[in-house]
């Protein structure tokens, strides 16, 4: 049996097992699609495109469709840490609910602070109940960084005042798999940018389990849903890259698949926003595009129902899915080789210190030399 056939059998067995479990709501995905006027045909097209995105052969698309329908069998706990909720927003806030947002609605979401009706003690109870009832088999998704300074006291959540650090450690214990959604959860994000007073860290740095990192500020809805689908289908983690990001999404640089790559190779660069080159779609490298250093599938998957993505809209990539991107990729509108060391004045200060320091050394050396130097007539 080749690897794909074996994987197919594995997925099949897993979905048969899930089918035995109780559905969370009587509402099937089919009903939900009907309510939103999504046809069966649209659904099959969606399944095929998710299959392709996950780099699986086409026969798997029936498996993807099945997994989508069974998504309500996999309990999902979604925690919010130090973050802006932008990752959730990017997934749920669509003017016409498409299949991605529908799957997110359909998945057995046991706890999600933004979406749930409960609040206060009741919310806390829901979380505790979910973690107890589904111990060892829930999927844990985390949004936001974990502040660790002062024993994590820079972030407390809920009526019991637990720190984010406590909650994440507790929740991670009983999780079957952990997904860091967005750059903050994955690498610390803006909270962890210099000087990082709260010592915010990515989830994987505070717990000792494998965490799937979905970098991006926000990550595209495709990458979130694709990871969910993969886990539902196979019950295990996909192949991961050097920073534990799924290879099917983060296997190539933005630069590798960019529609403006030909302009780059030809040496055609936009010199300033709004010039003729910009109108002709030239490469944005000289305006600071960080696509060459960023692994993501933005050029192929795009955002908002495949509508657009930053470079198509005329601004360079800022490398938001990379570790430490706020510090490493700044200035966002200058290439790396032209970045200032710090701010303008601080950079001038550093340069000044080097020049004056070198001068002091030079004067010192000359003074010492003139003590030792032999007189001219010798």
């Amino acid at each position, binding site marked *: 049996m080749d690897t794909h056939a074996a994987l197919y059998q594995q997925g099949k067995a897993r979905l048969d097992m899930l089918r035995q479990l109780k559905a969370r709501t009587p509402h099937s995905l089919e009903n939900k699609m009907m309510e939103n006027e999504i046809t069966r045909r649209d659904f099959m097209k969606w399944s095929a495109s998710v299959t392709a995105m996950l780099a699986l052969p086409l026969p798997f698309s029936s498996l993807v469709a099945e997994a989508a329908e069974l998504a309500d069998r996999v309990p999902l706990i979604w925690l919010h840490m130090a973050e802006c909720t932008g990752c959730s927003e990017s997934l749920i806030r669509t003017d016409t609910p498409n299949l991605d947002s529908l799957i997110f609605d359909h998945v057995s979401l046991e706890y999600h602070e933004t979406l749930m009706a409960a609040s206060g003690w009741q919310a806390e109870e829901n979380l505790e109940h979910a973690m107890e009832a589904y111990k060892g088999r829930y999927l844990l998704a985390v949004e936001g960084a974990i502040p660790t300074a002062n024993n994590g006291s820079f972030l407390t959540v809920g009526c019991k005042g637990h720190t984010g650090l406590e909650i994440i450690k507790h929740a991670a214990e009983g999780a079957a798999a952990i997904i860091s959604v967005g750059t903050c959860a994955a690498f610390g994000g803006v909270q962890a940018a210099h000087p990082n007073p709260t010592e915010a860290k990515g989830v994987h740095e505070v717990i000792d389990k494998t965490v799937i990192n979905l970098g991006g500020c926000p990550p595209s809805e495709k990458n979130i849903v694709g990871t969910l689908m993969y886990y539902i289908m196979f019950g295990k983690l996909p192949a991961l*890259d*050097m*920073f534990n990001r799924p290879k099917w999404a983060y296997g190539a*640089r933005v630069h*590798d698949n960019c529609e403006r790559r*030909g*302009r*780059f*190779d*030809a*040496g*055609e*660069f936009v010199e300033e926003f709004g010039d003729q*080159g910009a109108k002709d779609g*030239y490469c944005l*490298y*000289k305006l600071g595009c*960080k696509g*060459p*250093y*960023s*692994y993501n599938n933005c050029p192929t998957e795009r955002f908002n129902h495949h509508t657009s993505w930053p470079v198509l809209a005329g601004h360079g990539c800022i*490398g938001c899915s*990379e*570790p*430490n*991107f706020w510090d*490493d*990729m700044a200035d966002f509108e200058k*290439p*790396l*080789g*032209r*970045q200032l060391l710090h701010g303008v004045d601080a950079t001038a200060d550093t340069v000044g210190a080097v020049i004056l320091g070198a001068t002091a050394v030079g004067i010192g*050396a000359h003074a*010492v*030399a003139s003590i*030792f*130097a*032999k007189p001219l007539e010798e």
Partner: protein
Amino acid sequence: MSHSATHTRTLIFSPAIRIFHWFRALSILILVITGFYISWPFLVAPESNDVQVQSYIRFAHLVFGFLLTAVTLVRFYLFFFGKSDIERRSIQDVLSVKSWLVQLRSYLWSGHLHKAGVYGPLQFVTYAAISFAALFICITGLVLYANVYHLGMGGMMWEPAAWITAQMGGLAEVRIWHHYLTWVFIIFTVIHVYMAVWSGIRFKHNSVDSIVSGYDYHKK
């Protein structure tokens, strides 16, 4: 009619050392120029985009990058296993405090430079440092290269390159170290040329000539 020679000559640098020195110099020169283009594409776009300007410059950068990598490896090998021990002897001087003082004083126009090998201690340490800088810039270059070409050698380097990228904190870090290290070579080259000429004048020997012809000349 016969002339008696006024100078004697001694062989300092073997042909291998000289050839690799100039290969290295050539590759550094071309890598710096093409590297600055890659960092900030300063050429105006051609009339037709059939002319792949960036691609050709990248091609030159990659080819000379491989040359520099090869020379760096060969020079590490030659240092340890070359027939002549003229370079290795300098380690004695590096370990001697007296030699350091003698060399530093001689650089301050006081006294002569006496050394066991071909290099003074400060010179030796500088060359060792630049050799390791070359190693580091070659490694970061190869990591960046593994992202440029995914088949053949580039493909074979992918796994170690990904590991190094993770250790350095991302491809942007790799890139910026590669960029800063360029400046180490530029500053080194200026000081190196100055010191070669200066020490030839100051100590009346042919230091620049010896890296071309291999010989140093002394008056009889």
